[in-house]
């Protein structure tokens, strides 16, 4: 059936470079998740307790982010922002695109999480003399992160998967990009991308395991 001769040797010779690419992939995923969390919290707060303008802005961001493809958002960052004279390189555009997408999904998660924390917690903190920001930072946020920890780890795995889209905006330092760089030299597409797929699977599993271990350490009490 298969009259195709596999050539795995060039792939194994490229393996060290691909492993370095894995680090870049993880870096982009962690960075975009972190930025996504910060903006996600801000958007959730703007939605729940902001004024009309802030809440409207947050709502448009969230709906836009959730109703258009992630790839489209990356394209917008890479090709579209040029119209404003803002020329991002592919690394920045990819990170910004994924972070934007993460923020819109996480904002809804955080909004749900905020609802799970009784308002009496804030009132108690305020009546102990804490200022509103203090009460949010010291009382609400730690409880919020306990509730939304697993959704965040899921979002981080999604971010890892989305980093492969860097290919479409010409990023050649992450795992998919390095793989493609070798692929265009030899056209051993199947071999190279099989190894890349295995590496992506391992990255996803290792990050998941690390998140579980961290949760076990963080949420002991």
């Amino acid at each position: 059936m298969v009259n195709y001769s596999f050539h795995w040797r060039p792939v194994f010779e490229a393996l060290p470079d691909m492993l370095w690419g894995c680090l870049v992939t993880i870096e982009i995923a962690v960075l975009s998740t972190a930025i996504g969390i910060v903006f996600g919290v801000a958007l959730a707060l703007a939605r729940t307790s902001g004024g009309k303008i802030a809440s409207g802005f947050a709502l448009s961001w969230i709906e836009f982010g959730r109703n258009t493809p992630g790839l489209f958002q990356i394209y917008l960052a890479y090709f579209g922002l040029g119209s404003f004279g803002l020329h991002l390189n592919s690394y920045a555009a990819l990170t910004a695109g994924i972070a934007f997408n993460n923020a819109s999904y996480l904002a809804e998660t955080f909004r749900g999480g905020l609802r799970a924390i009784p308002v009496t917690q804030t009132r108690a903190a305020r009546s102990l003399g804490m200022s509103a920001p203090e009460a949010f930072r010291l009382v609400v946020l730690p409880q919020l992160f306990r509730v939304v920890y697993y959704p965040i780890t899921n979002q981080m795995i999604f971010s890892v998967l989305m980093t492969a889209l860097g290919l479409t905006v010409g990023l050649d330092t992450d795992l998919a990009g390095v793989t493609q760089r070798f692929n265009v030299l030899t056209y051993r597409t199947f071999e190279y991308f099989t190894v890349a797929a295995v590496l992506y699977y391992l990255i996803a599993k290792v990050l998941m395991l690390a998140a579980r271990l961290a949760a076990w350490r963080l949420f002991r009490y």
Partner: protein
Amino acid sequence: MFNATVSWHDIVFMLRGAGMTLMLTFWSVLGGTVLGTVFGVLRASAPGWPSAAVGALFDVFRSIPLLIQIILANAFAPMVGLDISAFAVACVVLAIYGAAYCTEIVRAGVLAVPQATRRAARSLGMSWWDDLIAIVFPIALRVGLPGWIGLALGLMKDSSLVLWIGVIELLRSSQIVVTRTQEPLLVLAIAGAIYFAISFPIGRAGAWLERRWQDQ
């Protein structure tokens, strides 16, 4: 910026691309739902290791970037002598990817039906099939439908990735128009508006249905 070099012809071209996006979505949702229902029922009914094996297999598809799966399938099809179009490859990959998620949705739905209800159905003389069709599915549908709508919209959005293997769907067609007109922001805004116009109403309808069914 808006004194348009983007002509009506370009818009029609992009709408054709949107039609291709909808075709991709239709076939992948159909394939994903059929496969997902079969394997979801299997996962909910089969004991121990067969269920775990199916779960682990589909987990692979959820842990590898879709773009990599598309590239792999596109390279693999001619290797085994399959002479199929890029569109067919795209539909197959998206359908399997959708099935990986749909299996879990169906499984959760089936497991949400109380065992006592199913035993009651069986003790009334219903066969396993009767029970599945008349008792389990209607109840499981209520649990699973919101997730399923989310999945269908997800597949619609993920279908943009198949531009890599040369299927001219909405995003690729807008990229072609950008190359011609050099108006990236305007053209991408139109593409985004089309995606939004497809996704937003369906998402809203799903949320409405979820709320309505929760009230009851």
